[in-house]
């Protein structure tokens, strides 16, 4: 290892012992994450796990023309576009509310974190009872003279899933916003108050600016967390849900079941690429924004 050879040239610096500290983690990471990831590139280039004929970029072409993949991609993007802003607004409001010195702050923050901690399977039955054909929402509609709605088959199912996501993840982002709000220097807020600025003005000129790094972080974590929504959707609707909420996770999950390695690795490479680009873009944008403001 390069590390070890370098260290030997500086006998007074016992850095080479640190290799042993890093080795377990790094070897596990290599073995289970990095090496198979590179190996899977080979799978993207063959057409079939058994015959293993070289197929070049055919898999990528096929994936981009696959209507299932395109539908999954569209739904995932729509889901992110709906969830993330809603989640950020709700969690910001919660964090801002908890920043005021009200009694029972600790209990509130505990309650807001509960949906994240409680296993999904334990609580989704309520959502099922609310939105199934024989559910509470339909009864409400019926009592008011409207017709029944088959919630899990209509396009409204997307909103149910978005609600589920916000319910579960608002507490997580609230914590991040809370930490971010705490980092705003008190002097600026006091100064704004003395100068007679209203709540909206204070927000626009002081809070928003100092909150921008946190906002970018919340944005990033929210997008990453939307992929975890697979859990609730799978538990409620199974492996092949309605076409309105069939997302990339379902596409990939079904590929696992059919053991279609070439397609699977192709999809994972595409996703990895997209997400890495997105992370870069967010970091660059955040850097630019903070340079602009300071």
């Amino acid at each position, binding site marked *: 290892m390069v590390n070890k050879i370098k260290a030997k040239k500086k006998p007074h610096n016992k850095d080479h012992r640190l290799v042993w500290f890093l080795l377990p*983690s790094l070897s596990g990471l290599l073995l289970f994450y990095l090496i198979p990831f590179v190996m899977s590139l080979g799978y993207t280039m063959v057409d079939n796990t058994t015959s293993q004929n070289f197929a070049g970029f055919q898999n990528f072409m096929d994936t981009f023309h696959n209507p299932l993949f395109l539908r999954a991609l569209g739904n995932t993007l729509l889901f992110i576009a709906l969830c993330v802003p809603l989640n950020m607004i709700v969690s910001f409001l919660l964090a801002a509310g908890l920043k005021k010195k009200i009694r029972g702050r600790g209990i509130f923050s505990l309650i807001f974190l509960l949906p994240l901690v409680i296993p999904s399977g334990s*609580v989704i039955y309520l959502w099922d009872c609310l939105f199934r054909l024989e559910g509470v929402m339909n009864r409400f509609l019926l009592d008011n003279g409207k017709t029944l709605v088959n919630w899990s088959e209509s396009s409204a199912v997307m909103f149910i899933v978005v609600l589920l996501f916000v319910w579960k993840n608002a507490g997580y982002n609230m914590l991040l916003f809370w930490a971010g709000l705490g980092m705003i220097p008190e002097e600026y807020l006091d100064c704004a108050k003395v100068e007679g600025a209203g709540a909206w003005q204070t927000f626009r000129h002081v809070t928003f600016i100092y909150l921008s790094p946190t906002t970018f972080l919340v944005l990033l974590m929210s997008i990453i967390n939307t992929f975890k929504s697979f*859990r609730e959707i799978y538990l409620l609707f199974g492996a092949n849900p309605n076409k309105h909420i069939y997302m990339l996770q379902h596409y990939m999950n079904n590929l696992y079941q059919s053991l279609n390695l070439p397609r699977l690795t192709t999809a994972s490479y595409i996703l990895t690429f997209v997400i890495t680009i997105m992370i870069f873009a967010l970091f660059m944008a955040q850097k630019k924004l903070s340079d602009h403001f300071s």
Partner: protein
Amino acid sequence: MKRRKIKKAFIYILLTLAASVMVFPILFTLSNSLMSGAEIADRYAKTVTPGNWYDPSFSGIHFARIGLIPDFATVRQYVNMLFLRPDILRYFWNSVMITVPVVLGQCIISAPAAYAFEQAHWKYKEALFFVYAVIMLMPLQVVMVPNYIMANWLNILDSYLAIILPGIFSPFGVFLIRQQLRSFPKEYYDAARMDGAEHGSYFLVVVIPAIKPTLAALSILTFVEYWNMVDQAVVFIRTEWKEPMSVFLSTLMNQETSMLFVASVLYMLPALFLFLLGEKSMAHGIQLSGLKA
């Protein structure tokens, strides 16, 4: 003065509203677990049966009648689960068998690695750490592909190892602990060196006790992550009786609703218990993982 009081009261009301929405599903599950089998069938059956005909219905559809307070509270379901369906406990144990090794392994593997990241002087250190961060941020479905390929090669598919091993080596622990170590004073190390201690003893005697809160946060976050895990279980575990409880609850939901509530409560308890113990640590951990690298 009065205006501020009204504002405060308004915020209080909104927060209480939000809190009740957050907590309602949990209370619902808890209170429904105290209902008898007959009441559950009465409330949640999808069709009209002789048992529930008195409830308003519409051409054969029986609407779910959810409620927070049981008509008749009983611990009958708990008794049923313990004596009639003890096999449900098997799934609980499956979850334990997956989660506990991952939590322990994460702590043991990640702490030294984070320490090495903080102390080493190596040209490519930050690049490697960036790789750790990117892997940490990838969605599960993407990360599972390499895991799957390696599990296939090692022939451990359909066993818990396929989930446990990648979990132990997940980069999240290293990331979290390193964030904490960034603000750990380097002078302690110099002082320890002057007293003759080297990395090993310094790490064990000084660093580990100092980052105990972070280790607690890591444990809780990892526990919650793997206790609730569904994605990996669906992909890696193919035999029905090996399923962890997180997936089995879905089967219960469709087949044996009366058992669902008690099983859910039982499954909630460890997560809830750990959370109440370490909520501060967990919040600290979430905020720490957010500090920019």
